[in-house]
């Protein structure tokens, strides 16, 4: 039997096309001949596989046909987990957004260019000028410092007069010490003591200084008293003050109970020749009572000067905050000048009048 014929027999056997007898004899042949049996099994497996392969191909065709009917694209759109709207916006419009952004940036840059923001020469020039100015300023400051060093002494910017109201307090004009970095007082012996501004009343031009220098031993009771009551027109008055670097005596009359006009009740008008160094000095009457503080500011009236009435000084003393004083100020009530000659009065006064130096 050829292989070809055997195969046909096997196929007939597997397909159940054999007669009963034929089948029996073939099964016997299978049992006896292992080679035949092997061929039967092999053929069965292979043709089954072939058949299943055919079925698979057929099934795939059917599935593909079904698949064709599904609108996959639309489904996909619906099923894709969409990123947030901003990402979507970017994905779908990024070209337009990019163009828009470019245009915007270009526009801003153009405007800035036209407006001169990029005119770098200009700003560099400005900067250079500023630096030059600073340089100049620096030089001038340095030369000033050198000058000061050469002179060895610091010139006081402005001086005035002050007089004692208690052991270590001195009154002067506010405009004398206004804006000062530091204040010192110099006594009749030419000794300089450091002081600080304790209290000011700019509206009445009164300032009260406290001598803080440790070398300052304090003063005794003032020889003068303070007269709150108004003085009369025509009263003979005098002052002692540092209109130069030594005390200068000046005398005159009380020429008006008011200052520049009838509305000015803060001041007396006086007829004493003064210069600005007299500012802050005491105005005394013939009995040695302090009736005012000389105020030698320039006025519009020729030859007229003014003095702040003592009442305002007493108010100012009263207004000093309690916490800036160690103890209450006790003003001298006993006048030791009354009855003395003018020369003796001035000698006693001399120790209580100070030059106020401001730096």
């Amino acid at each position, binding site marked *: 039997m050829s*292989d*070809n014929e055997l*195969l*046909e027999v096997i196929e007939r056997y597997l397909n159940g096309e054999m007669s009963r007898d034929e089948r029996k004899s073939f099964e016997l042949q299978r049992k006896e001949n292992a080679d035949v049996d092997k061929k039967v099994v092999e053929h069965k497996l*292979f*043709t089954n*596989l*072939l*058949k*299943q*392969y*055919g079925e*698979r191909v057929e*099934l*795939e065709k*059917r*599935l*593909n046909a*079904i*698949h064709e*009917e*599904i609108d*996959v*694209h639309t*489904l*996909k759109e*619906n*099923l*894709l*987990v969409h990123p947030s709207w901003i990402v979507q916006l970017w994905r779908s419009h990024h070209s337009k957004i990019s163009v828009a952004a470019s245009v915007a940036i270009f526009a801003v840059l153009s405007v800035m260019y036209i407006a001169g923001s990029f005119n770098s020469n200009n700003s560099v020039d400005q900067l250079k000028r500023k630096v030059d100015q600073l340089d100049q300023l620096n030089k001038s400051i340095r030369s000033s410092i050198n000058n000061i060093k050469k002179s060895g002494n610091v010139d006081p910017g402005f001086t005035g007069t002050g007089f004692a109201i208690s052991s270590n307090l001195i009154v002067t004009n506010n405009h004398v010490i206004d804006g000062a970095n530091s204040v010192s007082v110099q006594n009749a012996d030419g000794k300089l003591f450091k002081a600080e501004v304790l209290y000011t009343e700019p509206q009445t031009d009164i300032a009260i200084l406290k001598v803080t220098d440790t070398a300052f031993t304090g003063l005794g009771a003032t020889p003068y008293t303070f007269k709150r009551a108004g003085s009369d027109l025509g009263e003979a008055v005098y002052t002692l003050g540092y209109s130069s670097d030594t005390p200068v005596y000046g005398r005159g009359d009380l020429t008006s109970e008011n200052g520049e006009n009838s509305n000015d009740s803060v001041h007396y008008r006086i007829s004493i020749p003064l210069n600005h160094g007299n500012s802050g000095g005491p105005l005394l009457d013939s009995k040695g009572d302090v009736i005012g503080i000389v105020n030698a500011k320039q006025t519009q009236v020729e030859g007229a000067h003014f003095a702040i009435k003592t009442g305002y000084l007493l108010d100012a003393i009263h207004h000093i905050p309690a916490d800036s004083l160690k103890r209450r100020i006790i003003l001298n009530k006993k006048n030791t000048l009354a009855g003395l000659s003018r020369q003796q009065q001035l000698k006693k006064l001399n120790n209580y009048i100070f030059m106020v130096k401001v730096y």
Partner: protein
Amino acid sequence: MNKDLKDSTPTDSEVILGILNNSETALKRLYIAYFPMVLQLIINNNGDEDDAKDIYQEAIIVLYNKVKAGDFELSSKLKTYIYSICRRLWLKRLSQINRYGGDVRDFQEFMPANDDEFDQHNDRDMQFGKMESALRLLGEPCKTIVEDFYINNRSMQDICERFGYTNADNAKTQKYKCLQRLKKLFFQQK
């Protein structure tokens, strides 16, 4: 999933009976009902619609063969079963193409994979792949003769007429030679 598809979702027993009875309608309803679910899984996990089609059809074939073999026991909802197979197949595909990020984004509940089942399926797939290429190498007219006789169950008489063989013996000889060559080609592959 739109309303039409949802309405036409077949019950699990409808599907199984349909497959057993070779019902084209049942197969179609099954296919349409669960494709969106698998498409969703694949396209949201680094795949495209073609990947989804491949994976889904493979899963349907697994189900189909199990039902046909008569050893299919539904231990969960059919939907979960199909999803689980697709998930498992896609994970494997992802790791093959190095696109696997370590985890997949899931949209359904799923069952742990049964590896035995898949080995069987993979073996068969491999055999079919070999058969396909063997048939391609076989060439005409052998391919058609073999397919007609062994797959399409045509009679030798038909085949004689189609290929103009003068007698059935010549045709049988030709068919025999063709089958022998096919076997040779099939087993040569490794």
